[in-house]
């Protein structure tokens, strides 16, 4: 039974995206000119120069291991991202695709400033940045309202601005009275609704999206997808989306970065890259 509901939910997503692409297909054909400016003719928003990120140096240890000379955990370098170099123009929508564990999320977090790169530089040219990922970080014992305030401040907004936008965020989240209850009492759906609403209303210059274009129940999914799409496509924001959904990337992105085992395998026009990626994946099967 549970599986069935899951299945049907999955169908809804597909249905939604296919419907959307069907709706927009006719007009989009001519309208959707991908924004890929020639080098030097644009204002850059994100510049990565030879960025490598590895998880080696930070191995957790216990006292026992510290004294055990022989069996010390080997410091083998695990490079999650290797030599990433690219530049994203302001207003461009960039998708990142690739197999699981190919370094997509790591790259996104490095751009968000959560990880430091072991080598190379990341320049955001003074833009504000926010990362939207599944289950954005809340303090569970605080109320939804307090979490909105704190999250907003961490995203670099002033208290005044957040208090002004608070009603909009609460309205969008559809949480009602729950907004004044501790977040630990929320269902997982409510949790992601709140997280989504904060990022949807408090917009930053650069938006990094990790796999969540739609959250919550069917109704909220539609609403959040629509909102996301609108926000992404108004060209005010520079957007990076990590996604496995081919349809999403094709319909939203200008360019796509294909990552494979930490390397950037290909970068360019969304359709070209995704075609190559699909062919590659079929070959793997």
């Amino acid at each position, binding site marked *: 039974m549970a599986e069935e509901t899951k299945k049907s939910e999955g169908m809804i997503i597909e249905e939604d995206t296919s419907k959307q692409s069907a709706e927009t297909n006719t007009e989009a054909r001519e309208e959707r000119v991908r924004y890929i400016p020639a080098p030097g003719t644009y204002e850059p928003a994100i510049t990565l120069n030879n960025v490598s990120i590895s998880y080696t140096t930070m191995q*957790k*240890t*216990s006292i026992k291991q510290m004294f055990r000379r022989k069996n010390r955990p080997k410091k083998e370098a695990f490079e999650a991202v290797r030599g990433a170099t690219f530049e994203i123009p302001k207003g461009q929508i960039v998708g990142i695709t690739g197999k699981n564990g190919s370094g997509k999320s790591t790259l996104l977090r490095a751009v968000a400033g*959560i*990880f430091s790169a072991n080598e190379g530089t990341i320049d955001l040219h003074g833009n504000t940045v926010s990362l939207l990922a599944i289950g954005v970080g809340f303090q569970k014992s*605080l109320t939804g309202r307090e979490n909105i305030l704190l999250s907003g401040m961490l995203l670099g907004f002033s*208290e005044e601005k957040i208090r002004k936008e608070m009603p909009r965020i609460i309205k969008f989240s559809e949480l009602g009275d729950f907004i004044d209850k501790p977040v630990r009492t929320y269902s997982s759906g409510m949790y992601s609704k709140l997280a989504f609403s904060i990022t949807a209303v408090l917009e930053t210059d650069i938006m990094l999206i990790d796999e969540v274009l739609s959250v919550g129940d069917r109704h909220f999914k539609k609403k959040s997808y629509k909102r996301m799409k609108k926000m992404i496509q108004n060209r005010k924001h520079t957007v990076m989306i990590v996604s496995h959904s081919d349809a999403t990337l094709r319909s939203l992105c200008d360019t796509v970065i294909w990552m494979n085992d930490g390397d950037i395998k290909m970068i360019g026009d969304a359709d070209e890259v995704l075609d190559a990626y699909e062919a590659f994946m079929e070959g793997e099967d």
Partner: protein
Amino acid sequence: MKIYKQFFADIKRYKSYMICAAKAELKTEVADSYLNWIWWVLEPFCLMLVYTFIFGIIFAKSEAYYPLFIFIGLTLWNFFSANVKKSANMVRRYKAIVSRVYLPKVILLLVNMMTTGFKMCVSLAIVLVMMLVFRVPLSYHIIFVIPGMLILLLFTFGFMCVEMHCGVYLDDLTKINDIVLRLLFYLTGIIFNIDQRIGKNYPALATILGKWNPVAFLLSAVRNSLIYNQSPDWLWMFIWLVISLLLCMAGLQIVYRNENNYVKGI
């Protein structure tokens, strides 16, 4: 130098966040209880009664103004130990936040210090009320509380930086902290006067316990100025001020140099 500049810039930038976060944290600690904020006063007061009863009446080991003596001890000790205990798993506790958005990790420490500091201020207010009740003679010495508390703040912060850094990579630290802090609780002279109880028979040991342990030394300095009308030992005050400042500087260096790797560690 760059790191210290960064530190003060971060404090300025995250000032309103810190205040909001500390307020929210304090509120939630008592939000679900019936007595609400009264607990901030009630909890330390009841603990003082417990210790006064056990040590003052059962063991009849009374110092002058014994309830006050214990209460001041508990106030300062609770501030120090609560901060140290929490900093060891600070990054892990706030994983949900620090893995989603960049936040200077010292800000986490400062928020924690603000909440524990608020509770300490409530306790100190009770101390003042108790001093009136016990008719403690007041003198200008009361001013010397300020340098004593200031050095305690500095030392605690520096120590927290080191604890937080080590705690990211060493899971065992929280357990070690529990044991060491329990031992220190009895060695710091919270429930007895080190100079009087140990100093008589073992003067060398009393110096080690009372002067080499900054919390014990600062505690007795604060007590002396509040209830015994004595000036602190200025030479040792200076020594601990310098050590605390150096510890803070080292702690800031360690944290700022490594903080972007912490998320990878947890």
